[in-house]
């Protein structure tokens, strides 16, 4: 039984120039970035950098030109993403919109919604957040209770989302809500594009354990959402949200988000490390290299039109475990005086505390392993 059939990632002809382009743009902006930002790059926000990427034609890379896209290939986009992550470029402003909201609108959204949002996302101006989790709907997402009632004047929305990354900076949210009153579980759900400046919507910060304001609670109190905000088909929200999660889970950010911590370790330790640290570096290099092979194979499958749900879950589970172990292993092996006050020390301190979130955002190990077990025929 082939658990993870490998598909070769044939580098696009533009691979060298694309890498060069991203490295150059990073070089122009990196003077602004803190060590903490660089080792959690797709969470941290730099609006100016997002605009620069949009201006350089590096967002909405695969989308049709009529919506501001570049009509380039899935593999070219993959190359751009891995370069941004490996260089610790803060992409938090646009990441979600570019990764999942835009593609979902292209797949299911009306012409009106595409024209309204996609060009702004591709310019790096419009940011979107993910409105899935609620206080009683975490891993068990089908327990979503926020409810939108259809009226002649629009959807009347009540309820609450929670843990919403970056909602305070986003103009819009793609939300999963119940549109069929009294429905249960997977039925009766729909997706709405909700502009967060509408009356009846309030965003409240939640401070995370790194001390930062990253995620939020979002409350809907008789908010009136235009009828045309419906994405795709009414009642098909569950299926569409699963497609959205597939975009969310399959990228290189599931193993490469702390790469700068690793690179900084290598720099600080120098060309002739003590044996235990040399071995640690070797181990981390072997893991990152292997994960990259798996991630590239998954990207190649996506590019070929396959639906690698199991593979994406495998890469995310393994990648998150790797990213979480890395700071602990470094803390265990590296001399404390190399850490005091240095960029390495700041990165390590940040990632040690931030790392528990890596395996929560986008689905927990238990949930991912449940998906894998289903693929093995055990569930």
């Amino acid at each position, binding site marked *: *039984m082939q*658990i*993870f059939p*490998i598909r070769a990632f*044939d*580098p*696009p*002809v*533009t*691979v*060298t*120039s694309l*890498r060069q382009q991203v490295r150059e743009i990073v070089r122009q902006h990196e003077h602004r970035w803190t060590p903490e930002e660089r080792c959690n790059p797709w969470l941290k926000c730099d609006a100016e950098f997002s605009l620069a990427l949009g201006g350089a034609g590096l967002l909405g890379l695969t989308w049709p030109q009529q919506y501001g896209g570049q009509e380039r290939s899935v593999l070219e986009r993959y190359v751009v993403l*891995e370069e941004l992550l*490996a*260089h610790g470029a803060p992409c938090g402003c646009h990441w979600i919109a570019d990764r999942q909201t835009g593609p979902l609108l292209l797949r299911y959204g009306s012409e009106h919604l595409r024209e309204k949002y996609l060009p702004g996302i591709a310019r790096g101006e419009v940011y979107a957040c993910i409105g899935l989790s609620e206080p009683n709907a975490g891993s068990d997402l089908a327990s979503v209770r926020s409810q939108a009632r259809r009226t002649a004047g629009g959807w009347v929305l009540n309820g609450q989302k929670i843990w919403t990354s970056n909602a305070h900076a986003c103009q819009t949210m793609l939300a999963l809500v119940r549109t069929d009153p009294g429905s249960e579980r997977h039925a009766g759900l729909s997706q709405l594009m909700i502009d967060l400046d509408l009356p009846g919507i309030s965003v409240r910060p939640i401070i995370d354990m790194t001390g930062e304001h990253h995620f939020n609670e979002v409350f809907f109190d008789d908010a009136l959402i235009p009828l045309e905000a419906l994405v795709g088909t009414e009642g098909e929200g569950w299926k569409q949200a699963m497609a959205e999660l597939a975009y969310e889970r399959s990228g290189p950010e599931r193993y490469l988000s702390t*790469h700068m911590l*690793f*690179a900084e*370790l*290598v*720099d600080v*330790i*120098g*060309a*002739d*490390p003590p*044996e235990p*640290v*040399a*071995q*640690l*570096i*070797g*181990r981390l*290099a*072997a*893991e*990152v*290299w*292997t*994960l*990259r*092979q*798996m991630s*590239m*194979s998954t990207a190649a499958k996506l590019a070929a039109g396959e639906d690698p749900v199991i*593979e994406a879950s*495998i890469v995310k*589970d*393994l990648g998150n475990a790797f990213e979480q172990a890395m700071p602990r292993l470094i803390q265990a092996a590296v001399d404390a005086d190399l850490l005091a006050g240095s960029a390495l020390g700041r990165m390590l301190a940040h990632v040690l505390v931030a790392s528990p979130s890596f395996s929560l955002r986008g689905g927990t190990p*238990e949930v*991912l*392993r*449940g998906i*894998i*077990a289903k693929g*093995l025929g*055990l*569930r």
Partner: protein
Amino acid sequence: MSESRQLLCDMADGLFSDLAEAGFDKAWPRIEEAGFASLLIPEEQGGFGGGWGDAYAVLRIAGRHALSAPLGDTIIAHRLLMEAGIIPPAGPIGLAKANGQVGYGRHCGSVVCIEGGELRLVEVATSEIVEGYSLAGEPFDRICPAGAPLANAHCAANLSALGAFALVAQSAGALEAAFELTLEHVNTRVQFGKALGRFQAVQQAMAEFSVEAAAIDAAGQAMAAALDKGCALDDSTGFEVAAAKLRANMAIERCFPIAHRLHGAIGFTMEYALNRYTRRLMDWRGDCGNDAYWAGILGRRVAKLGGCGLWPEITRRSDAAAPAE
């Protein structure tokens, strides 16, 4: 997979599954007859004309069937001897470790030793043989040459790296076989009124197992692809072989306990097949470079690249296949 590799794999799978229970004496003549030894010899020199990807695929299948023969050593020895301009003798050919140990040494006609840039082909019949066994009960003998070598030549190849290549391939196959056996077991063994595989704890362990089986094969295939792209094997610090062997060792470490835990006592018996895979895996984990060995080599290499050099090096090595713009 190319058509010719598919044919090769079908042939290997058919033969090796036939030989799965066979000992060396029964297995070897059929392997030799099938011509696998010349897998890495170019067609114009009378060989099969395969690449490292083909060798990986065949050795992976050998691992799946716990083949009792020094196939990897023989394939690699043939390649080294041809490159050195020496005609390979018939029969299995072993590769000597630094301490003179050779898998299936007593059964080999000859053994390749490389030391200080010199390859020597040693005849087993005239050597002293100190018999021993691997963790898996396979012959693992010390061959102490007595007379002059049959042939010698300059050779820059690194036997640890070449041996590691074969062991990664075999390990990927053996780990997959152990996984399939465990999957079948949890699907059929009933406790507390249901198949073990219906318990969430068991499902989660199987998922972990499959993730590692996926990782070892991804690493192995990428290693073979890099060799086919011409990443030099005489470079003792070859990035991909080091990374793949280390990653394989890590996968074995994680899966060995899961396979045995989920099997219960039946998996601890000599009769049940699991130990044919797991004992080999644990042996190969320590052979041709354990974790410390390869982690040290790879780590020192990365340290020389520096933090800013690591990522460009990783991407450069995989982009090498890109057509010119």
